[in-house]
């Protein structure tokens, strides 16, 4: 459905996209995950033919995407990172305005606008001006304006930034519902939990490059970490740390200044028991203990050597 090949975008000496490739299939919720400044929004703007690029090819629905590709644009809905609605128009008027840029038939547009209002849960706010809406409601209006015309492809650029948990959950549920109704979704975020929760395939970006791609499971299998065991409130000597490091499957053991021990293991079996046994043998006191499978942050950490949110 969407192909990006060898895309290069430079801002002077800064390379924002460095030979970036992307393939998105119809029906996916595709996640673009990366820290701020990794090139996600630049990639989206190139895809939408808003930004000039130095090199590469972009095709959408099998056709080259250009500024005058109006028929292609008709099938795309965009929810930009910053809320982009008219302050001087009500909720209803904003949705009607943007829907009308795609749908000229008045009766059909009326139905679509009502549907978008229901979808975003804005029934009680239709006459309200945007400045009177809370941050969460404003984000929902931003989404409603982008999806009202029932696009085949929906691009959501960090739609949950600065949103309360309740609104965030509602937005994520809505995105899944849109996908169930047939829309292909491109979802950019630096919140790995969201991407992990809703995306069927993910590309992890850093410094304008796609450093890894696949399903969540595929990405996690790319790294050594199979399980991370965490022990809080523990005091250990260097010798004891060395012994833990030498336990089976352990490839990294770190003790933070807050006395939290983090042990990364290559296999997910019996690691917690082995560590607890050792602490018990040595009569070392400890607080909360838990084991967790790897996260996308672990994937990012192992590939780039830094945290996703750095």
């Amino acid at each position, binding site marked *: 459905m969407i192909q990006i090949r060898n895309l290069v975008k430079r*801002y002077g000496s800064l390379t924002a996209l460095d030979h970036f490739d992307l393939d998105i299939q119809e029906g996916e919720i595709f996640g673009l995950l990366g820290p701020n400044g990794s090139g996600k929004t630049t990639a989206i*703007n190139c895809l*939408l*033919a*808003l*930004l*000039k690029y130095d090199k590469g090819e972009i095709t959408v629905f099998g056709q080259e995407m250009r*500024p*005058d590709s*109006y*028929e292609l*644009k*008709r099938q*795309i809905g*965009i929810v*930009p*990172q*910053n*809320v*982009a*609605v*008219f302050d*001087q*128009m009500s909720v209803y*008027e904003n949705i009607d*305005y*943007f829907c*009308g*840029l*795609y749908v000229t038939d008045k009766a059909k547009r009326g139905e679509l606008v009502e549907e978008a209002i229901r979808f975003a849960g804005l029934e009680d706010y239709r006459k309200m001006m945007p400045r009177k809406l809370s941050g969460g409601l404003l984000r929902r209006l931003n989404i409603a*304006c*982008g999806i009202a015309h029932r696009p085949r492809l929906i691009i959501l650029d960090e739609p949950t930034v600065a949103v309360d948990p309740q609104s965030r959950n509602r937005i994520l549920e809505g995105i899944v519902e849109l996908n169930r109704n047939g829309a292909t979704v491109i979802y950019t975020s630096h919140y790995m939990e969201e991407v992990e929760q809703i995306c069927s395939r993910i590309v992890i970006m850093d410094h304008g490059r796609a450093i890894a791609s696949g399903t969540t499971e595929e990405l996690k299998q790319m790294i050594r970490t199979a399980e991370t065991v965490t022990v809080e409130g523990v005091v250990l000597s260097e010798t004891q740390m060395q012994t833990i490091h030498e336990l089976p499957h352990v490839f990294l053991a770190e003790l933070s200044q807050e006395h939290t021990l983090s042990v990364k293991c290559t296999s997910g079996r019996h690691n917690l028991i082995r560590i607890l046994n050792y602490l018990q043998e040595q009569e070392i006191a400890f607080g909360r203990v838990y084991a967790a499978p790897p996260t996308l942050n672990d994937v990012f950490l192992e590939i780039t050597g830094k945290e996703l949110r750095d």
Partner: protein
Amino acid sequence: MGRLYRYSVLQTLRDRAGMFWTLVFPIIMATLFYVTFGSSQMEHMKPIPVAVVEGGNGIFETFLGALDGEMLILEKMGEQEAQEALESGAVTGVFFSREEPSLTVAGTQINESILEMLLNGYRQNQELAETIGAKNLPGLLEAARQMRGQTDFIEAIDAGGSTQDSALDSFFSLIAMTCLYGALTGAASALKLRADHSALAARRSVTPTHRIELIVSELLAVFTVQFANICILLLYLHFGLGIGMGRHWQLLLPVCALGTLCGIAAGMFLGGTKLNKGMQIGIIIAGTLFLCFLSGMMYSGMKGEIERFAPIVNRLNPAALISDAFYSVAVYENAYRYGRSLLLLAAITVILTGAAYRRMRRERYDSI
């Protein structure tokens, strides 16, 4: 297109800051001008004291006599006495009533210009009368009737681009200011059109609506609102404050329309630059006030001074062109000056609109 236009009109009308500067502020200013000037300066001009040195031209003396008391205060003097009166400032000018009448003045102020116009008018009409008299005697009567009409004509006109009525200078410059304040709405529109300026513009740019449709609907909408604001101001000035707009007031509408478009285009052009919004508003307000200052909004003699020393400035200053066109219609009834101002204003507007369109039409950007 119609729907986009309606929504753009709605947005512009609901933009409180924009409506304040383009409607409320000019009305407040007009009211303040009216209160400041009062009605005294808006009354007819005072008669000008002049000396007449008799030299045997009875027709000319009769002509001057007809203006005595109403427009001139005549005093017959000998040549030496008249010269002394002129030097002492007791009279503004000295008319020599010879076969070829002449005038001596000591300065270049408005009253001196009026006396000069008066003499030129007499000479032209004299030639006309001689020509008509030679061919058609009854026509001479009509020519005489026209000469009597000089009083009304001279009362309103001068050579330097200003009248004695300084209040009118200010009011007409205020109208020019309101037209040019269209730049504020123009700049706001640019913000909604250039994807590298706002997320809203970027969002509109990725829709299937043609770029030209977006630009034209926006331009028409802000023009409609701004032009309506000007019309409201004109109605307020005329019916509320009693400012005369002349017999051919309809001719003022093209002036307002072009002035408005000129302002909007300038604003769109400026709005298309990388300057931040606050800076743009600052430049528009300061720039407009400066142009209006040059056209006589704060000091009524300014336009006349510029006309004397750098007339090109008056030809290139949209505010001066607008106020001059207003004078030409409301005061002078001078078709040539009206046409010239309108043409120059149209030329400036076309250039600015073209430049603004070039800035707005871009669809793909180097950075966003």
